[in-house]
């Protein structure tokens, strides 16, 4: 089998979105936002990951990320966040994927280079419960993406992504960096912001 090369920012964006979809499944499992029984073990870029079996949930994640892909490929996505709220809709955690896609050289890059870097992110997510406190019961989640201001004209009225409300997000959270990469074609950072006050009497 030949070496797959990423030839342009579109190729990198496509792989990043595929990776993002896997990360969302993985985070939902690790943070126990759904019963563990709905997840099955799979492999992605030679790394074990958890994948939701619930059809509507799978479709929801796939559709959200697919609709995000053109913006990622254009380089107008600043951040994609997965928010976790408690049953009072108060923010508990915010996982942040921060992107910076760059123009590739004409030679492109082997996909394996990026896959190797992405593997590190997946492994870090898989152990994130070791440095995060357990969530309270009945938490919910949502995705929010941050587009760069210059990209507002890229939003068309048929897009399933709609303006988000940012009220109530200015709490004093601590930020824990989980993984970052810098390369000539992609800078990416994953960090989690989480509440300082955590239950300790368990």
């Amino acid at each position, binding site marked *: 089998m030949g070496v797959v090369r990423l030839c342009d920012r579109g190729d990198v964006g496509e792989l990043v979105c595929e990776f993002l979809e896997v990360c969302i499944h993985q985070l939902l499992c690790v943070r126990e936002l759904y*019963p563990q029984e*709905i997840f099955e073990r799979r492999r992605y870029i030679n790394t074990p990951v958890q994948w939701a*079996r*619930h059809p509507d*949930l799978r479709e929801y994640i796939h*559709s959200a990320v697919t609709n995000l892909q053109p913006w990622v490929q254009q380089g107008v996505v600043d951040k994609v966040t997965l928010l976790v709220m408690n049953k009072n809709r108060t923010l508990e955690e915010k996982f942040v994927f921060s992107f910076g896609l760059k123009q590739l050289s004409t030679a492109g890059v082997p996909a394996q280079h990026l896959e190797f870097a992405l593997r590190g992110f997946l492994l870090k997510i898989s152990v994130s419960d070791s440095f995060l406190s357990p969530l309270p019961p009945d*938490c919910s989640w949502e995705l929010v993406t941050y*587009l760069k*201001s210059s990209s507002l004209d890229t939003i068309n009225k048929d897009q399933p*992504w709609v303006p988000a409300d940012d009220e109530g997000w200015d709490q004093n959270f601590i930020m824990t960096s989980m993984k970052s990469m810098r390369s000539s074609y992609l800078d990416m950072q994953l960090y989690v912001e989480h509440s300082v006050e955590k239950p300790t009497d368990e």
Partner: protein
Amino acid sequence: GSVSYLLTPAKPPPSRFAVQQWLSENNVTDAQSHLS
């Protein structure tokens, strides 16, 4: 700093309750136990 525009999917994700119902209605077994 620059201003960002925040967007979210128009629909919320399936609730935990809906997924739990799907589990019980479909009698889904724990995949982990089969694979580990």
